[in-house]
């Protein structure tokens, strides 16, 4: 098992390396540079900046130095927009915030979505199912940038229960987490329902019924594991979706997370930051996919890890 996890994580490295290379080169090829301002910069200043950020070197040399720095010292270089901040510092400040938001959101999404989906499947074609699935449909089709202001309007500006924005106490977590989680919860509910329905119709659940087990035991012991597999395999890409979705949530709720740098660093031509962010997002994505593989192994004994 451990060997598998280690091996699975090791496979990430070459992929990550490719992603990093790709992004590193691509941002430099795009038009515009990090130090373009509305007035023309004197040649000496430009030269000094290029020297400081090593932009006058050929890309291959820049890349080699960057890679060596990243691997040996974990340094991802200085940000080109925020001159006195290093990329690892910016990521170090914002990543924990985004992770906290993302993990809570995922937890809430599963906690809401999975039971709703199971309920829908168990009470298939009843009003409970219809209500649950209508809610899920709504959750999927209402984008976060509509949901968020609605939540703020009701719970913060009308009822004064929760703060409108910022990142201070647990109370500040509630609305953004809900906002990030709901669309995902809706999706999970549909997946869980479909998965559960398939399992409930399966032969082995019929066998379980024929044993005289109660409905509750059948659902919890026999159907749940298999029914949740689609949900589990969704959590990998789903987490990535959450991180990207956090861009909107973080902005609306003014949360100092990493989402802001995702697009901004590219627009700013902050080469180092873009590469660093790509590395982190890519790494997170791959790790979460690996985690899904491992979770699969735990859930489904038929999965052979050592293939």
């Amino acid at each position, binding site marked *: 098992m451990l060997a598998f996890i280690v091996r699975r994580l090791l496979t990430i490295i070459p992929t990550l390396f490719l992603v990093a290379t790709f992004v590193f080169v691509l941002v430099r090829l795009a038009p515009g540079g990090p130090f373009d301002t509305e007035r023309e910069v004197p040649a000496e200043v430009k030269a000094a900046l290029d020297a400081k950020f090593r932009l006058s070197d050929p890309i291959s040399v820049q890349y080699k130095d960057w890679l060596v720095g990243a691997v040996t010292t974990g340094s991802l270089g200085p940000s080109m*927009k925020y001159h006195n901040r290093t990329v690892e510092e910016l990521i170090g400040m914002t990543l924990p915030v985004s992770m906290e938001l993302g993990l809570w959101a995922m937890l809430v999404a599963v906690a809401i979505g999975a039971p709703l989906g199971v309920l829908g499947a168990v009470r298939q074609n009843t009003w409970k199912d219809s209500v649950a699935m209508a809610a899920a449909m709504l959750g999927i089709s209402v984008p976060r940038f509509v949901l968020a202001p609605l939540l703020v309007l009701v719970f913060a500006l009308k009822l004064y229960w929760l703060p409108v924005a910022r990142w201070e106490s647990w109370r500040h977590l509630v609305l953004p987490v809900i906002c990030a989680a709901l669309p995902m919860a809706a999706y999970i509910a549909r997946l869980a329902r479909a998965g559960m329905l398939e399992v409930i119709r399966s032969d082995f659940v019929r066998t379980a019924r024929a044993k005289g087990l109660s409905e509750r035991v059948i659902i919890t012991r026999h159907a749940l594991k298999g029914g949740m597999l689609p949900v589990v395999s969704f959590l990998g890409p789903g987490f990535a979706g959450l991180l990207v979705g956090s861009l909107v949530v973080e902005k609306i709720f003014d949360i100092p997370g990493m989402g*802001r740098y995702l697009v901004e660093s590219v627009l700013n031509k902050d080469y180092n930051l873009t590469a660093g962010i790509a590395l982190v997002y890519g790494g997170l994505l791959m790790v979460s996919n690996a985690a899904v593989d491992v979770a699969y192994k735990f859930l489904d004994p038929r999965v052979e890890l050592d293939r």
Partner: protein
Amino acid sequence: MLTRSPVGVKTTIPPFPEAPKGLESIAYDAANEKGTGENLQLFTGADKQVRAAEPGQALPSGDYDVVGARGAVSCNGEKTYYFEVVARDGSGRRGVLPGCMLGPSSTPPSALLVAKWDAVPTFDAKRRVDPPEDPQALGFVDAGALGSDPSVVGVRVVDERTLEIEAEFPTPYILDTLSHATSYPVRRDIIEPFEAKGEPDMWTRPESIVTNGPYEIDAWKFRYEIRMRRNPHHRHHDKLKIHNIVWMCVESYVSSMNLYKSGELDYIGDNGSLPPPYKPVLRERKDYKAAPYLGTYWYEFNTKVKPLDDVRVRKALNLALDKAQLTEKVTRGGERAATHVVPPFMGGGYSEHVEALKAKDADLFATPEYSFNPELARELLGQAGYKVVLDPKDGYRAEGMPAIELLYNTSEGHRALAVAIQAMWKNHLGVAVQLRNEEWHVMLKNVRDRNFQVVRFGWIADYDHPQTFMDTFMAKSPNNRTGWSSTAFESLIHKARRTADTTESMKLYREAEKILADEVPKLPLYFYAKSTLVKPHVKGFFFNRRNEQLVHWMWIDEDWKVEKPNEPAFPPETFPAPGAF
């Protein structure tokens, strides 16, 4: 694509409810009361990091690298210039250094300040080289000479508290230029160790930075908030009524308005303007504050390409725009239509000059020749060879006139304006306009490569004098992207800025402006205005045209429902004589 405001859709804007009866402000709710007492929560836009409108509190932003004291204070119309200095050697000594010490001073506290560029310890008169006849912007320091030979710079330290700046000619606005962030003094002894360590920017961190304003940094959460507390070394520290400031860096305006509404912000800072869609609603509120702002929004022409190389075409395009419509229907924030380049409320004697002209009904730029005038515009276009004919079905059509491309950086506000202008040019001239929007850095590159026809830009005054605008039209100015130049214009400017007599000088500036209005290298659209929301319990809030609101004048009025005059927290002192402290 992401625009600046992620929630820029109408439906998602939380409505600002009507004010409850008996309350002055909608945003102030007794049940949700915050911000009273000694804490003032302020907001500042995040994209500029922080711009504390406080002497000495400006932090390095993406634009500037220098930190220090500043001295342009416009409060109650009174203006003073000074640098403030604080001894950080524990002696508690503090003092005031006039921004531009042209005279001798009394004995100084030792080694307190000094500008980063006082790399010139002594001034060697013998080595002095006369600066070239065409200094670019400021007229007293040749920036280009800084790196190569410091001794040619006309700036020297006379003694430890005196900085001498030698000007080539009498420069009336020299004091103003010193209020710009680039002339803030900074501490060499703080900076140089960092430079030696190879981390030249790290001295700006809260634990290292030394500032000399009334407030000092308490904590800095990057792009989240900056907390400030009173600076115990400041000479007014015991008079300050606001003890702590929280500058929140809020990314989206919707959030900042919500924070304001829920009572977490007392004031939606001085950075940027309120978003146009909100303005019609907000304008009606008592806590809405707006004031003219020293900036001009304009379109720049590439005068090297056809058909824009023809001055008649440029002029026609200018006259075909009903700019009053643009400010009333599109920007909606109290901006004023611009028929010329320098905002009429500009200092340095300009506004007085314009007022005098207006009183005599002699404001050239108010005449039909320079205002919205579609007939004249069509005539001019016809003279340029593009006859404007009236098609009963399609309206006007400029025969033979190629379509014009209008470039702007991606933003909702710029787009709305461009669309309106596109319609006006089509309706009044029959000129087809294609819109092209590009992300900021891409646009800059294309503009630098002269790969544009008409491009959206603007200018915000660096100092309170017409010269700051005129500089951008000089042939060698990096801010002149039009390819246009005029020796007549430049000699007028050279003359104007050497003229000590204000009225005379302003007359020359207006003459130079007439050349710009006749040749239209840039098409001025409107003069900026700034707007913000301030809770009614915040007193001592004063707007000025440079949009600098000084916290040290502010105070919290616990009994704010009782109307009282808006006074500063303590009486503003007149500028102390050098050494008089």
